[in-house]
């Protein structure tokens, strides 16, 4: 990796901005990634990678505007890369409680379990679309900018993901 040497002032700016990003977004971002990958430990790993990536980016250019959208985009891409590597494991349900591993005991409401079960069945593009919109709270336009697609495509993916979720809810009812 190319090493960038900063002045002390630039380093202070980068530190301060990363501090603010971590403080403001670590909880929401970790919950989001945990839903995506289905494992709390892996989610923390990925979130840390995301913040390190943010730090490296700010190190190279302290004045660069880094928003929450950038963090979610990086987290989504990192999660998708992780899930692609673990794809074989996802389709081998050796452990029946695999879906619940990501959740704490006091989070296991019916809605929470249904959502996590559906997330394991969804294709990656639909999973990221529904999580960015209904879970992270972005509009379809913002989610389209994050995912690099059109708003209508995001809405279509959300609709298809909802179909799967509806099936899961009907099965568990």
């Amino acid at each position, binding site marked *: 990796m190319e090493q960038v040497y900063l002045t002390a002032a630039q380093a202070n700016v980068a530190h301060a901005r990363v*501090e603010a990003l971590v403080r403001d977004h670590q909880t929401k971002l970790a919950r989001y990634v945990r839903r995506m990958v289905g494992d709390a430990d892996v989610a923390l790993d990925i979130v*840390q990678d995301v913040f390190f990536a943010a730090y490296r980016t700010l190190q190279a250019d302290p004045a660069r505007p880094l928003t929450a959208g950038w963090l979610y985009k990086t987290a989504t891409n990192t999660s998708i890369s992780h899930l692609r590597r673990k794809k074989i494991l996802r389709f081998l349900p050796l452990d029946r409680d695999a879906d619940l591993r990501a959740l704490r*005991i*006091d989070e296991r*409401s019916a*809605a929470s379990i249904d959502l996590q079960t559906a997330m394991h069945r969804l294709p990656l593009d639909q999973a990221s679309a529904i999580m960015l*919109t209904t879970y992270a709270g972005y509009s379809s336009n913002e989610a389209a900018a994050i995912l690099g697609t059109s708003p209508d495509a995001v809405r279509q993916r*959300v609709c298809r993901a*909802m179909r799967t*979720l509806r099936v899961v809810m009907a099965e568990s009812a």
Partner: protein
Amino acid sequence: MTLQHCDRIEALAGAIALGEATEEERLAYRRHIAQCAPCLNTFGGEREIERVARTVADARESEVWEPQLKGVSTARASRRYRWWRFAAAGVTSLVLAGAAVHALVPQRTSVPHPAVARVMVADANVSRERPVIEQRTVAPQRPAAQPQRGLIVQHNIVQLAPAAAPLSAAPVIAANVTPAPIAEVTVHAPPRQNSVRHWSSNVPVWRRLRDTDTWRTVSTTTTTSLSQSAPQTVTHRAELLQVFSQRQIREAVPLGGETAISPHPAMIAYDEGAQGTSVFQVLIDERGVPTKCIITKGSGYSVLDVAVCKAAMQVRYSPKTVDGRAVPGVYNDAFTFRMTNNDLEGIPKQIQ
């Protein structure tokens, strides 16, 4: 409905789920699912879409996990990056050897950068001081049972009965008497001036009350409630036609009596609160086989109309006969669907 339209409908349903749909888009979606039963069954109505979307919001609000990035470096080193422990020893020695530059360059080790680590520690302290609300529930929490919704089906029956004339007035056909001109009577051509509407139905109910008429028509309505989970049975009386005439005409009636036509709307009808009156007409050939079902007045929900026609086409009929000779005929009937809750009054019978 072309496939292209249905593709567009997916985007509309997604917009409704995200709460971004405009009133025009909602109207377009409503119009589409009223005509396209596969889309209604696949995506559900607006209420169904919003219910599923609410599940995601409920799951998000139930989260209590407060991640602490401080512990990440330890767990990560022990699980995924164990070999970094050895590398970390070397890196630490280099750091101790002392270049200030090292402090500014982030190392990809299990030890976070001092700036990030400081924030993490500070955040962890805040988390420890924060009061934690304990919500210990092991079993999955199900929402409270909603009052079961039922579907009331009213079967409007057009009945043509003989007038209250003495039996002795019946014409006697003698060999040397020329029969009177035959009056053709059809069920579905009521005199307009006498038509009234039943209080609970859109179907005109018509009567001829003058005693001088050779026939009169009355209408009776039987009501049945369908529950969402129970097997559904519809009780009704079949159309009855008796014409006091010299020519013996018997209209087509369904075989099997009162429970012959029993529409079973899809479950989506319950969710959407579908209600309305489906008036239909079945064309029956001389063998009693239904050849075509026509919805003469739709209920507004294709799922109800489809259920009615499907039930009507599954029934065998006794064909229309004129003087004992079978001829093609028409059977007219109507079903009224009305949504209700179980705790409301007016349900005549709850089927278990």
